[in-house]
């Protein structure tokens, strides 16, 4: 037996490099390629920074930047307080107490996610406007209308909170339902009351889940363009738009984007840090039934109202306003052109959902088939696009696609004497690419979680039977992760349908979407007409929200 006395230098650099050479396969390279493809927008913003800021940059720094930062920070704090209040209280009530219509409330609380926040903003402007719904209501009752001005930054914080609190609700409820039951019983057995158990036990334990939901809300807050623009609040996103379209200074837009990226990544790091500090291993719950508390009539009614309140604010009130407007304007808006536009919008969403699900699946499986640990970590970087505001991604895509197209046009002209227009820039390709970067995580997460449910010995045993990675995927894994792919497809579809800022920047001239149409109406002082495309988006998005929630409850 040869004695390997060299075990000590197995992990020397020389050995590591030799193993790296041995273990890198085509899947490692493919994974790397996909991640680079997804990171290109951020990389190009980084590279473009080297060109220096535009002429107005110093003006912006002196006069506007304080405003951008101040408003964005105000929104972040105000929205945090409100969404935590709405999200945690409703999650606690539906998972701990029995009250009338509780089951319906569980999914109704998710519905505000079906309405893009800019549409909520339009609806509330209508509700509180002179001659708006509130005004009419007050006059009908015979009272003087006390006008509440909502079109300012406090109003914007309210709008964003009522439309985004479900992110916190969903993650908090998932925790309370899966984990709380046993722990609460233990706490009760030790003689601790309901309220004290909640504040001393459940809240600290649920904190990582709640903050994860909160971070999603804050990313949406920073991403918002439509609502802030309509309410005249200067934020980073509106600043980027102004720099790009009004000032026509891409360099300035790039500088603002870079700043926004830094803020977003600070948020992500904060989230990671808070989770690392408090790493609670999830308990296996044997008990899938949550024993809800039965309470007497008055508190029960109180809880019902407390839960109904955010749903009213986030869904029923704005939707009623929109339906009223739609009733007033449908004859004007509803025409064959509008139908074509809807089809186009759905078509783009379907195409994007398919492409995004495809790339997410590739990323998950290619990185799995790579044997290199750092490649697997890198794959997770590929999904960070969800954190980057749409306007920033749009700018980041514009830069390289424009450069590539110019290069290609020159080449075609030089070598083949072909005069060609832009091939990617300003076409559907660039738009779908940008959506894919932004929404990859939306597809990645459901696919990955179903993929993880497939025990790794299943594909392993396929390999032991002489079948390679790709065929194993097609024959074994694909049939087993179908539900994950379907929910990924639906989720991306909805997000694309609702998306505004990125679409505004990158959409081809002759293409329009429902979201852009609603925005155009609202910007052209025709906010009533915006109701029809808005309702189209809402109802399309609401159906799968209900459907997916049913799936969630079944599990």
């Amino acid at each position, binding site marked *: *037996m*040869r*004695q*390997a006395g*060299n*075990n000590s230098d*197995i*992990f020397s650099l020389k*050995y590591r490099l*030799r*193993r790296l050479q*041995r*273990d890198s396969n085509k899947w490692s390279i493919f994974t790397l390629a996909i991640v680079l493809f997804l990171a290109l927008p951020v990389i190009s913003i980084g590279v473009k920074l080297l060109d220096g800021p535009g002429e107005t940059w110093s003006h912006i720094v002196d006069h506007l930047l304080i405003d951008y930062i101040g408003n964005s920070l105000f929104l972040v704090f105000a929205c945090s307080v409100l969404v935590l209040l709405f999200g945690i209280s409703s999650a606690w009530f539906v998972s701990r107490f029995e009250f009338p219509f509780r089951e319906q409330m569980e999914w109704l609380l998710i519905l505000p996610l079906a309405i893009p926040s800019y549409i909520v903003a339009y609806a509330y402007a209508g509700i509180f406007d002179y001659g708006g719904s509130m005004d009419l209501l007050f006059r009908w009752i015979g009272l003087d209308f006390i006008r509440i001005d909502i079109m300012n930054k406090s109003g914007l914080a309210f709008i964003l909170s009522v439309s985004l609190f479900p992110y916190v609700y969903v993650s908090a409820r998932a925790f309370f339902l899966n984990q709380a039951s046993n722990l609460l019983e233990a706490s009760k057995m030790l003689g601790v009351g309901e309220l004290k158990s909640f504040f001393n036990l459940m809240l600290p334990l649920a904190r990582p889940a709640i903050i994860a939901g909160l971070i999603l809300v804050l990313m949406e807050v920073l991403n918002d363009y439509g609502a802030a623009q309509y309410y005249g609040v200067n934020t980073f996103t509106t600043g980027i738009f102004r720099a790009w379209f009004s000032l026509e200074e891409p360099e300035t837009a790039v500088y603002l984007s870079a700043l926004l990226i830094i803020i977003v990544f600070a948020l992500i790091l904060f989230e990671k840090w808070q989770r690392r500090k408090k790493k609670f291993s999830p308990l296996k719950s044997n008990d899938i039934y949550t024993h809800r508390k039965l309470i007497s009539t008055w508190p029960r009614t109180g809880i019902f109202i407390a839960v109904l309140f955010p749903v009213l604010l986030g869904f029923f009130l704005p939707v009623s306003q929109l339906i009223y407007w739609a009733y007033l304007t449908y004859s004007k808006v509803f025409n064959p052109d509008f139908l074509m536009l809807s089809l186009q919008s759905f078509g783009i969403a379907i195409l994007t959902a398919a492409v995004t699900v495809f790339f997410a699946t590739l990323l998950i499986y290619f990185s799995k088939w790579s*044997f290199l640990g750092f490649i697997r970590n890198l794959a997770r970087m590929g999904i960070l696009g969800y954190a980057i505001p749409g306007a920033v991604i749009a700018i980041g895509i514009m830069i390289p696609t424009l450069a590539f197209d110019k290069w290609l046009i020159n080449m075609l002209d030089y070598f083949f004497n072909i005069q060609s227009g832009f091939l990617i820039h300003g076409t559907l390709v660039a738009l779908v690419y940008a959506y894919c970067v932004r929404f990859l995580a939306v597809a990645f997460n459901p696919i990955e979680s179903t993929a993880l449910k497939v*025990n790794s*010995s*299943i594909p*392993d*045993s*396929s*390999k*032991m*039977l*002489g*079948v*390679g990675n790709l065929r194993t995927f097609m*024959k*074994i894994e694909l*049939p*087993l992760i179908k539900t994950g792919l379907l929910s990924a497809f639906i989720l991306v579809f909805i997000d694309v349908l609702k998306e505004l800022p990125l679409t505004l920047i990158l959409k081809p001239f002759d293409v329009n979407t429902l979201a852009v149409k609603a925005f155009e109406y609202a910007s052209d002082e025709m906010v009533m007409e915006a109701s029809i495309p808005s309702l189209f988006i809402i109802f399309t998005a609401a159906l799968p929200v209900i459907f997916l929630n049913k799936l969630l409850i079944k599990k």
Partner: protein
Amino acid sequence: MLTINSLSKSFDKGRSFALKDVSFNLGKGDVCAIVGESGSGKTTLVRLIAGLERPDHGTIELAGEMVSSLKKLVAPEKRKIGLVFQEYALFPHLTLLQNVLYGISKLKDKLNRAKEVLDLVGLKGMEDRYPHQLSGGQQQRVALARALAPNPALLILDEPFSNLDAMLRKQLRNQVFEIIKKTGVTAIFVTHDTQDALSVADEILILQSGKVVQKDEAANLYIKPNSVYVASLFGNTIQLNKALQSAFECPLNANCCHAIRNESLTINSECEYVTHAQVLKKTFLGDNIQLMLKLDNGEQLTVLTKERNIEDKIMIGFNSKDVLEFTS
């Protein structure tokens, strides 16, 4: 058939080793059991042989071909190894027949071969069932049939009976190894149960914290264990430390370790080394009685006996030929 040379694997970049410097050979047609406690590295070892993990050091040769070294790694699907997983890993969306056909789709005579192996494991007539419609023991046999169908050069069974209850386990163990002997395939069988290993394996390899402690034929391993650890794996063993040696008045080589198997102890009968003992406590364990003894020199000792009528004072002893001696 299988030659493994100084195989090492660490999952934390060398801070600790799941497997360190493992070397051994396996002849054609041998059935070898790999025995070790959980965490001893036995699953890592078979996953390295199968190609599902990548070694940090060392080589694996299979049927004369280098399948794993620092330069080259043959993909698991090209190694012609059959692996029966602990949790069976049947494809849940395929029928029993489709599961078995999966690995032999390129074979001309695949349907006959599938029927043949299903017959071999005694599952004829159940071809159209799905895995969830089968009992644990049946699933186990399907997994075996599926692994045997492509005629693998080496068959690995990873803890094949750990998910079954004790009754079924014994029955299935014999069935499975009858089938394996019938096919004449070289097999590696991973277990933490020494009874399983002794009853079916030609050879046993003992792993302890990633290292090979001993590899020998089953009977030899029992008679001549090379360490207290190995001895204790195959039955109750009492280490003969200095205090016990003086109690029994048996001077042993001070440079060695010594132990005696519980079954070699005699009660109230003549033998070379004896001592008187007082019974402090008797615990009824069913087939055995556990005695807590206080020896003449005050030393305490716990032994098992089949003897039913034990008085409060007994004589306990052993013969020198039963003393196990370890140089390490």
